[in-house]
């Protein structure tokens, strides 16, 4: 749910990074945070456990610039990936405008990826969103690791809509901004459809 403020000339959109535990959602946000000018970003907030596993969410506000005199703000959130945080994940999806699904490319994580994608579909439909319609981008992360599944195979398992996907190595930043840009574009074009 976007917030369009004609008085302060701002458009606020919410983007959620979804995916299984340890797939690199927080790492995506941390890289974006490091590589953004101080005047374009707010604090990166992480509600994490002592072992740095996300407990509730990470939050990063970004104001990348203006379009036609309107300041475009993106609020980036991650969900806790671990299975037992299901209730928290649902809460964070409330009012989402666009989703980045971060998949872990390692062979042993394929099942978790599929499980997480199913979980996303169910949680969205509970809130009357449709995974097939909402702005959505998929990122195949950790492509630098030795035991990765070939892209074609991942695409077959996780990307039935044949959407554009991004290969990434979030720790080094490869593919991170490309993914964000792709989802941001979809979100703004979705708004264009409605307004």
């Amino acid at each position, binding site marked *: 749910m976007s917030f369009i403020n004609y008085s302060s000339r701002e458009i606020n959109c919410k983007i959620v990074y979804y995916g299984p535990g340890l797939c690199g959602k927080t790492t995506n946000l941390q890289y974006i945070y490091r590589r953004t000018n101080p005047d374009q970003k707010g604090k990166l907030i992480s509600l994490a456990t002592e072992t740095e596993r996300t407990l509730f969410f990470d939050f990063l506000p970004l104001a990348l*610039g203006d379009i036609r005199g309107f300041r475009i703000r993106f609020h980036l959130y991650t969900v806790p990936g671990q299975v037992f945080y299901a209730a928290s994940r649902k809460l964070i999806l409330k009012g989402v405008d666009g989703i980045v699904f971060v998949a872990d490319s390692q062979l042993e994580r394929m099942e978790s990826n599929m499980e997480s994608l199913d979980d996303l579909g169910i949680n969205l439909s509970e809130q009357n969103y449709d995974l097939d319609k909402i702005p959505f981008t998929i990122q195949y992360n950790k492509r630098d690791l030795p035991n990765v599944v070939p892209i074609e195979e991942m695409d077959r398992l996780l990307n039935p809509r044949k959407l554009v996907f991004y290969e990434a190595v979030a720790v080094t930043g490869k593919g991170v901004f490309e993914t964000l840009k792709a989802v941001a574009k979809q979100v703004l074009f979705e708004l264009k459809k409605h307004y």
Partner: protein
Amino acid sequence: MTGSDLVMYEEEFRRIDEELQKLHQQSNAKVVFLVDKNGQLIASAGETHDIDTTSLASLTAGNIAATGGIARLLGEKEFTILFHEGEKDNIHISLIGQRVILVVIFDNRTSLGLVRLRVKKASETMGRIFEEITLKAEKEKGEGKLEESIFAEISDEDIDNLFR
């Protein structure tokens, strides 16, 4: 999905801002602000300069969402008021019309009783304004008035420019 987007125009924004300023004064609070349930800051009044309002907004919304989740587990619809007491500052959080969150931060210059009383009054007024906003947005969407908005002209290039 976008049926529930919040669109705020100059006139309504001014009325809400006035109402917040009034609440700030009458309750003798430090800061008063209004947050969308999804964590976006709508308006604020008072000593906001040394507070990170964006983060506060998102965390408040997370707080309300988590408490709402607990409420449903217990068979309650929602807990409409949250109150956190600190050593110096206290925070009073309440829901207006299931849609927006009103946050009042105050210290010992005032009392919880006064804050609650003023919040209740302000909530009624603001609740009405938000109902009007929803109606207005739906009406104008139906009439296609918003077609002249900035979105009509957004291009790939505009979006590329954001990421330079």
